[in-house]
């Protein structure tokens, strides 16, 4: 991201040099504390499995191999979990982006009767909810437990995103829409043909926030899903963290026919399986985040604007 350089102007003096050293050192330390765990996961997932199981891979990958990534998908259900994660991220993000764009736009329209009442009702849900159990009971009654759509439907209308889009639309010139209206375009046409293309910057922010939330989501599976075929990667990783025994068994299964010829360095261990899944889960974030950092930053700045 680019922040304007407004560092306090300073003169070169002995105290300033000492300050700079301490300051730089502090931030180097904090950045390492934040960054090293990710590096640790990655080097361990590609190092010799017998070494990583002992915790001996600390600074550099040793005995590099990619067997873990080819064998991991031999684990029962893992490919399915990857597909569930991808499906909920793609469908959920698409639905939220479209809904946020449409509602954010509609809530600026005076021709919508009781517009501010509807808007308040939507925004109020940001500050108030009936509670974990009543929501669970409702979702259960609707037949959405053990149903893929429980990942999508409750997440479609996001008040925060609607605020972002609405304030953005209000900053666009009103003449955009007026011109189309004079040409006789209906509200849906105006939305899709005129407004949507002009909203892309804010929709990128909405999309990136929503995609990360969907990819990372774990609590909805915990509450509403018992069917293993609907587990996303996050939940699969959590179960592996808590089932050391079944994991060792799974490790043997994953080995399959290769078991006989595999060396100690490529034999799957509980550690290697955990590390590899963790990297698969975190890699999209690591790659996507730096590229889209400015959208995240824009989101938090706009989000600070009152509804």
């Amino acid at each position, binding site marked *: 991201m680019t*922040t304007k350089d407004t560092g306090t102007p300073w003169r070169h003096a002995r105290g300033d040099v000492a300050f700079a050293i301490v*300051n730089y050192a502090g931030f180097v330390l904090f950045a390492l504390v934040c960054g090293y765990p990710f590096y640790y*996961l990655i080097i361990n997932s590609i190092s010799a499995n017998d070494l990583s199981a002992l915790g001996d891979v600390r600074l550099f990958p040793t005995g590099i191999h990619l067997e873990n990534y080819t064998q991991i998908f031999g684990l029962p259900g893992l490919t399915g979990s990857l597909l569930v994660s991808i499906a909920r991220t793609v469908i959920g993000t698409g639905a939220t982006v479209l809904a946020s764009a449409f509602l954010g736009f509609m809530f600026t329209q005076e021709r919508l009767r009781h517009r501010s009442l509807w808007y308040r009702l939507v925004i109020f849900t940001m500050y108030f909810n*009936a*509670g974990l159990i009543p929501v669970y*009971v409702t979702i259960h009654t609707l037949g959405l437990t053990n149903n893929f759509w429980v990942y999508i439907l409750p997440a479609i209308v996001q008040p925060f995103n609607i605020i972002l889009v609405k304030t953005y639309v209000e*900053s666009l010139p009103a003449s955009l829409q007026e011109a189309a209206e004079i040409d006789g375009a209906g509200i849906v046409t105006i939305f899709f043909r005129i407004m949507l293309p002009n909203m892309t910057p804010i929709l990128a922010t909405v999309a990136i926030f929503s995609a990360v939330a969907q990819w990372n989501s774990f609590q909805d599976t915990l509450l509403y899903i018992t069917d293993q075929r609907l587990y996303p990667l996050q939940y699969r990783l959590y179960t592996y963290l808590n089932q050391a025994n079944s994991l060792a068994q799974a490790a043997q299964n994953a080995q399959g026919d290769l078991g006989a010829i595999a060396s100690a360095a490529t034999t799957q261990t509980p550690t290697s399986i955990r590390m590899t899944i963790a990297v698969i889960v975190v890699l999209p*974030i690591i790659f996507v985040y730096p590229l889209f950092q400015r959208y995240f930053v*824009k989101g938090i700045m706009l989000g600070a604007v009152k509804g």
Partner: protein
Amino acid sequence: MSLTQGAPREVLGARVPPGTGPAGALTGGGRGRRRGAKPHGKTSPYMFLVVCPFLVLVFVFSYLPLLGWVTALYDYKPALGLGGSEFVGLQWFEILVSSRTQLEQIGQVMVNTLAMSFLGIATSLLPLFFAMFLNEIRATWFRNTVQTLTTLPNFISWVLVYMIAFSLFSTSGLVNTTLHDWGLITVPMKFLDTDQHVWLTMLAWSLWKGVGWGAIMYLAAISGIDPALYESARIDGAGRFQLMRYITFPHLLPTFVVLLILSIANILNNGMEQYYVFQNAFNREYIQVLDLYVYNIGMTGNSLSLATVLSMLKSLISLALLMSANAIAKRVRGTSII
């Protein structure tokens, strides 16, 4: 609540630099701008029809559950449905205040909840100082690298945070094996499976995840401070720390106060994910915050109705807290915060 159209807007009391897109445009306030009004200004039922499906979604997932509050009066069993469950009146409310063990348990849960919230509030100045000191660094590449690395943890799930904690701090994790290899310990130290320092450990993980990201808003606020202020203060002979103390800090304070008031309003809402993933048989007594407790007794302890009672009380108290926080903000700052 000031959700009215055209109410004065501001970015949490911070000035946003011009040229940051819509945020900059917003600070001018949206007053007087009315979009999409047809010359005759009539409302159209068709407009409502196209919005309706989304309003139904909001109603179903956010307002319909309020009906679920009646389960507090039943001995609710999901398999039987509400019709088949026994009506018990205020039995759960009585249990809540009459049973001694229940009271003690809830007492401990409240202590945990408030402890985590207050520790969070006590450390809420850290992102502000992070931003102030990072701002003192001139090398842009260094600042950007630090920012990218320190905000990254905010974007991973709590499951992954626990995975990291597990691989670093379990008895066979990196820290224990390293200390062992260096001959500093002979018996692995228990960092995770212990009832010692649970609150501090939880605080440390939420700081690890949140400080870098929390600093972003302050950094943006700093870049909105008029450079002329610094120049004139420097001409008057102010040193670095005086500039930080008398110019940067006061400009960040309004943002800080708003976030502080909001976090006081959220004092009962710790969320459950962090505590759920770190929870185990050893630390359960100190890690159960209200949100986790409601989950534990409702979803695993098979008392959905008692959990509903707690959910309900929590929602109502939180709402009352938020309203009072908002009223305080209105009185102190002249504008509401929500």
